[in-house]
């Protein structure tokens, strides 16, 4: 078994596609009309056959309270791995992306959290090369 697809709810699918491709740099994989909405997925250009991220419409009434509560507490909906988190932070900030948490060293990795402008918080993670992670200092 492997993870083929996961999703984030987005307020506007076209705006989300623009943000996830033009700003974040993902590649559109599927864009199939589905009633008023679309089956719209993106993949990482580093792994075109890898897991797809579904940009799912947020029109279900349960979505708003669910996301509002998570965003209030700063809880991200998904995590994307990057090679250089400081460079990504600088690049995205330059593109107007707002971070709720700047790059923060948490021991085994450096993490940051940004607002995806579609209603979600997303975490970036740069894992550190293998070293002794047991020392929390």
């Amino acid at each position, binding site marked *: 078994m492997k993870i083929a697809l996961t999703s984030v709810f987005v307020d506007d699918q076209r705006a989300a596609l623009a943000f996830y491709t033009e700003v974040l740099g993902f590649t559109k994989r599927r864009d199939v009309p589905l009633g008023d909405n679309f089956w719209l997925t993106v993949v990482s250009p580093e792994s075109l056959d890898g897991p797809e991220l579904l940009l799912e419409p947020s029109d279900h009434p349960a979505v708003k309270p669910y996301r509002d509560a998570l965003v209030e507490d700063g809880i991200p909906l998904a995590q994307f791995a990057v090679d250089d988190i400081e460079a990504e932070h600088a690049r995205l900030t330059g593109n107007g992306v707002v971070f*709720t948490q700047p790059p923060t060293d948490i021991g*085994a990795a450096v993490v940051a959290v940004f607002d995806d402008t579609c209603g979600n918080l997303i975490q970036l993670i740069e894992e550190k090369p293998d070293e002794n992670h047991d020392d929390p200092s």
Partner: protein
Amino acid sequence: MVCNTSGPVVHEPNLAKIAAACGYSPQVCGYEASATLICKLPLAYSAFMVDVFRALDDQTRRLVLDELSVRDGQTLFEICSTLTMRHGLSLTRQAISQHLGVLESAGLVVTERRGRSKFHYFSPEPLAEITARWPTRRRTEQ
């Protein structure tokens, strides 16, 4: 003032904050209210400081203040992940939320909404009350 207030001296710049924290109306701080209310302030001050000392009497809450004084303005998620990853504490989010509530009611933490998220800030004023009451001096200066 009509009455002779006894007990700890309430430093005037913080009077408004303490009065507000104790549920007094802003008029009390403006010395417009009756002398009776003003006389109650030392009592209110004591209750306020008890909250401060109780809030500080906990290792997790002191760690939260440590982390906020390193980087101010953190979400609940960030505080939880820092306590877990950097300090090896495995507490539930609800427990940390309750600790933040205790710190907030003691005036040591204030929250602010920015966008759709809530951020926590360290508020050192109650600690200033402690050093104002018991000034820290070096031995050589005595």
